[in-house]
């Protein structure tokens, strides 16, 4: 089997990426614009020994995924804004209990039922801070259909490696857009697998280096007989109300992701070396942004493009360094300035940050970005 070339939409590419990574379990609840992912999983998974279930709501969906992941199965769910909000409770559970799970959020306009189902990028902050309590997780944002495949695959690698929920933040435009995708030969890569203990003897489910170590995860039902709890727990997994136990646990979880922040940074940069005005964006907004930047360059304007793929943990240093030369940074995004907040945080204090938010349910036109870009020179 060699490479396969297929025309597919973003949602399909996410599913293909997940299947390529060895997806074994999908639980979901219907919500536009993500439904194609569930439909495809319902069709494909049982053919290869996997399991699909349509749950009674999104709370149940993420919960079932966590249960399945505990048995050692790679699990995924897909949803959109309203469903993503309902999942927050158990996303926190997965963060604390360190259960690998992948969540695709095909963003749509909110809050509430909003403008179904126009594209949006309004869940950037929800992806990071949606669940209560201090926690760390990973969120990746594909900028085209091919990246839906690649980043969903990568989401599994990271989720299994760090034992953390990974969110794939797409949007209605990317989810439904069709592009040609070259699928790699299945023999050319290895399937992500989580590290497992060798034997139940002396197994401590949460024993790990306090400086961000990742404990070994034993699958349920293989004689390890361990206890998984959403209460703070010590190395043995037993619940504990001790100040030192909670403190050590939360700090380890924070470091687990935090210390790898720059290593996790993934982005696309073009003409950033000498740019005076930079455009920073993600997802489908970045498509219009890139074409505006290229047009500006043709006119001799020193514009640069930075498209982020890793949204969380936010790559402070990487982004700060890349934007170091720009005097102005324009941030087009389909929300009222969520990414811009992070950009403001990491650039020099004398760099001007222009918030270019759009919340009318329409995609950016390259002209909109270009006009702002031109004004900045």
């Amino acid at each position: 089997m060699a490479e396969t070339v297929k025309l597919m939409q973003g949602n399909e590419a996410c599913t293909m990426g997940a299947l390529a990574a060895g997806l074994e379990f999908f639980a979901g609840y219907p919500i536009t614009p993500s439904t194609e992912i569930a439909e495809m999983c319902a069709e494909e998974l049982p053919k290869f020994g996997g399991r699909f279930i349509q749950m009674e709501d999104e709370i149940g969906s993420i919960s079932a995924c966590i249960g399945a992941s505990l048995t050692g199965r790679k699990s995924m769910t897909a949803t959109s804004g309203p469903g993503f909000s309902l999942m927050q409770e158990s996303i926190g559970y997965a963060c604390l209990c360190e259960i690998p799970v992948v969540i695709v959020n095909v963003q749509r306009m909110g809050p509430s039922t909003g403008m179904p189902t126009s594209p949006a990028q309004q869940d950037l902050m929800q992806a990071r801070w949606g669940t209560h309590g201090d926690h760390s997780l990973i969120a990746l944002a594909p900028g085209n259909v091919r990246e839906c495949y690649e980043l969903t695959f990568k989401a599994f690698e990271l989720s299994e490696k760090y034992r953390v929920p990974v969110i794939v933040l797409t949007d209605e435009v990317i989810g439904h857009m069709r592009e040609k995708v070259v699928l790699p030969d299945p023999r050319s890569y290895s399937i992500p697998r989580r590290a497992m203990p060798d034997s139940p003897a002396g197994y401590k489910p949460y024993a790990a280096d306090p400086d961000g170590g990742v404990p070994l995860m034993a699958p349920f039902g293989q004689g390890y007989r361990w206890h998984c709890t959403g209460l703070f727990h010590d190395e043995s997994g037993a619940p504990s109300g001790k100040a030192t136990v909670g403190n050590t646990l939360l700090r380890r979880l924070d470091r687990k992701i935090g210390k790898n922040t720059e290593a996790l940074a993934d982005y696309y940069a073009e003409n950033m070396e000498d740019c005076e005005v930079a455009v920073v964006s993600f997802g489908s907004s970045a498509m219009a942004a890139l074409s505006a930047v290229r047009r500006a360059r043709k006119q001799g304007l020193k514009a640069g493009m930075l498209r982020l793929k890793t949204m969380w943990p936010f790559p402070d240093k990487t982004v700060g360094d890349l934007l170091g030369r720009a005097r102005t940074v324009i941030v087009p995004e389909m929300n009222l300035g969520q990414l811009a907040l992070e950009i403001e945080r990491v650039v020099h204090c004398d760099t001007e940050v222009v918030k270019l938010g759009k919340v009318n349910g329409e995609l950016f036109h390259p002209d909109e970005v270009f006009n702002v870009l031109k004004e900045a020179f």
Partner: protein
Amino acid sequence: MAEILDYFRKERLPHIWCQGCGHGTVTSALVLDFDTLHTAHGRAIAFATGVKHAKPKLKVIVMTGDGDCAAIGGNHFIHAARRNIDITTIVMNNSTYGMTSGQYSPTTPHGMLGTTAPYGNVEFDFDLCELAKAAGATYVARATSFHVTLLQDLIEKALMNKGFSVVEALTQCPTYFGRKNKIGGPVELLNWIKDRTVNVKAAAALPPEKIQGKMLIGELHKVERPEYTATYAEMTTKIQRTFNDYKGGNRGCELNSD
């Protein structure tokens, strides 16, 4: 005996409940040394659905309470019953939220007191067994922490049923429910529970006025119906493909191998 002890988390005994709490009677299973999963409040059955569906060979037991199962997790409860997924659910129903100090729950009888029902419960309570039955559970039974032998027997039968099984255990919360309603201590409360129940077999021979307002205990419902994970597995055998049929991705599914 040594074998049984092997399955207890001895360091976790005795249990964490108040003295005289009915949960202690029922929860020997909570200290059982299996793989155990303490989920977010209300989500136990949804987590269990994932465990069972992903690894059907596992025996899955859910320990839940009236608030967990009938209020915040009510949706998961009825849908698991509808699917008839092979999970044994033991509901410890003490008619109150004991942990949060005695608020009324979906199973607090009308008129009784709770910290959020200071003038008597305005709402009416669920009959959890009727609910489970109507939703599609294939084994439904009820006992109390007074009728311990019966309870053990029913749990055993529920575990043998291949499908969604519900055993409701009426238990006492002397600390809040008993005190608030001035019923007395654990013993009085246990008697109060006992007096509210009548065995389903005995009830058959009693005139209607004798069973008016009483809760039936014993085996209340048992039917055969296809179980969810088995039906799903059957479907997969009809559409099985091999690795080479898969266009464009490696597959790591090992589900069929166990």
